């Protein structure tokens, strides 16, 4: 059962279309997994629909309809039907961790180069993803069964969606579908559950820093690459 959800403010920014792309990506993935947030999202769409219905109408140029019907006619003649490029679900990954991804993440994986895992620390590996934007780093993180990630704080906001397995930190236990926001300055030390590996999707605003002794020496989080 999903216990951690995006707050309503974030969901509303998503539904209103004002949330940056990378953050919208992780909210969308959660919404696809979570019936409760899906229904919230629908309510927020209805707010949009009601605002549209009640807005003060503005006159259009006299030829607006004609222009549109012209475009529709020529589109249909040229059979501008989208060649539905049913991309053969190029699932390059038979890994069970990736068996039940939300649709949007599945598509992102299929549209990216094959995942390249980089060892961040003994317990943690990451693989960056291209999403066509420049403000956030978007990546998968996987933690070994029982693996402990070095204590780190967040210089920028980090949003994590658990996709497989679970992990815990001092604040709680997070399982599949759970959505967590770590604000800048919060320090945490995630530990994966003993019996299975944990896969997370994360969107980070700015680099995180290791805070423990020698952190400066082994700071594997330093290389921040948005995309």
């Amino acid at each position, binding site marked *: 059962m999903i216990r951690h959800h995006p707050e309503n403010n974030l969901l509303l920014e*998503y539904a*209103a279309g004002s949330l940056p792309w990378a953050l919208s990506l992780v909210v969308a993935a959660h*919404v*696809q997994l979570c019936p409760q947030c899906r229904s919230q999202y629908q309510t927020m769409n*209805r707010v949009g*629909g*009601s605002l549209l219905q009640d807005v003060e109408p*503005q006159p259009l140029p006299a030829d607006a309809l004609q222009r549109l019907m012209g475009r529709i006619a020529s589109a249909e003649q040229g059979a501008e039907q989208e060649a539905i490029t049913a991309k053969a679900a190029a699932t390059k990954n038979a890994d069970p961790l990736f068996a039940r991804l939300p649709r949007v993440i599945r598509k992102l994986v299929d549209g990216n180069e094959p995942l390249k895992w980089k060892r961040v620390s003994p317990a943690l590996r990451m693989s960056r993803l291209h*999403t066509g934007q420049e403000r956030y780093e978007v990546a998968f993180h996987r933690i070994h069964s029982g693996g402990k990630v070095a204590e780190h704080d967040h210089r920028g906001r980090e949003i994590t969606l658990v996709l497989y397995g679970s992990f815990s930190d001092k604040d709680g236990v997070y399982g599949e579908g759970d959505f967590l926001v770590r604000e800048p300055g919060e320090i945490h030390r995630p530990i994966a559950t003993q019996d299975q590996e944990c896969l997370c999707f994360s969107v980070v605003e700015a680099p995180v820093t290791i805070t423990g002794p020698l952190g400066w020496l082994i700071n594997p989080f330093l290389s921040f690459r948005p995309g």
Partner: protein
Amino acid sequence: MQAPESRDDDWSELLTLVGAQRDRAAFERLFHHFAPLIKGFHHSRNAQAFSAEAADELVQEVMFRVWRKAPSFDARKASASTWIYTVMRNCRIDMLRRNSRRQHEDGGVDVEDLWDEAPDNQPLLFLQQKRNEQDIAAGLRALPAEQSHVLEKAYMEGKSHSEISAELGLPLGTVKSRVRLALKKLQAILGR
């Protein structure tokens, strides 16, 4: 007397006709009703997110998509105005994104992969659905001005909470709590 929320049923029927029979007369009626609203949503006394010209272009693109996508409209899931809202929002995101995205490195994910136009919901009875729509519209009109103003800025001007807080000179926490209060009221109405 104007009763826009009850007329929404008629628009949903027209939109269903457009989808099922490619009925141009029905589409033209939808256009006459919704196109000036789509423009007003982005450019009017209250909303200045777009110039008049840009809003006219947006109207063309949104209504073109409404025609193309009408076959996927399902009146059991959403009213015409809610569905057109989602098409319009996605279209706006597309237009804004086109200027900034790095086309070859976007992982092949489109706006519609992120914002479902017809999210699957728990099966809803049509009656229930219609009541929800009417209640939300009435609830919105009953909100205190400071709350509806913040919702309008978010939806119509596409502003984030922090942009709204900067613009109105309010602490971010105040903007957030106004949004939450407004939602709570709307949800209380739905939960009755």
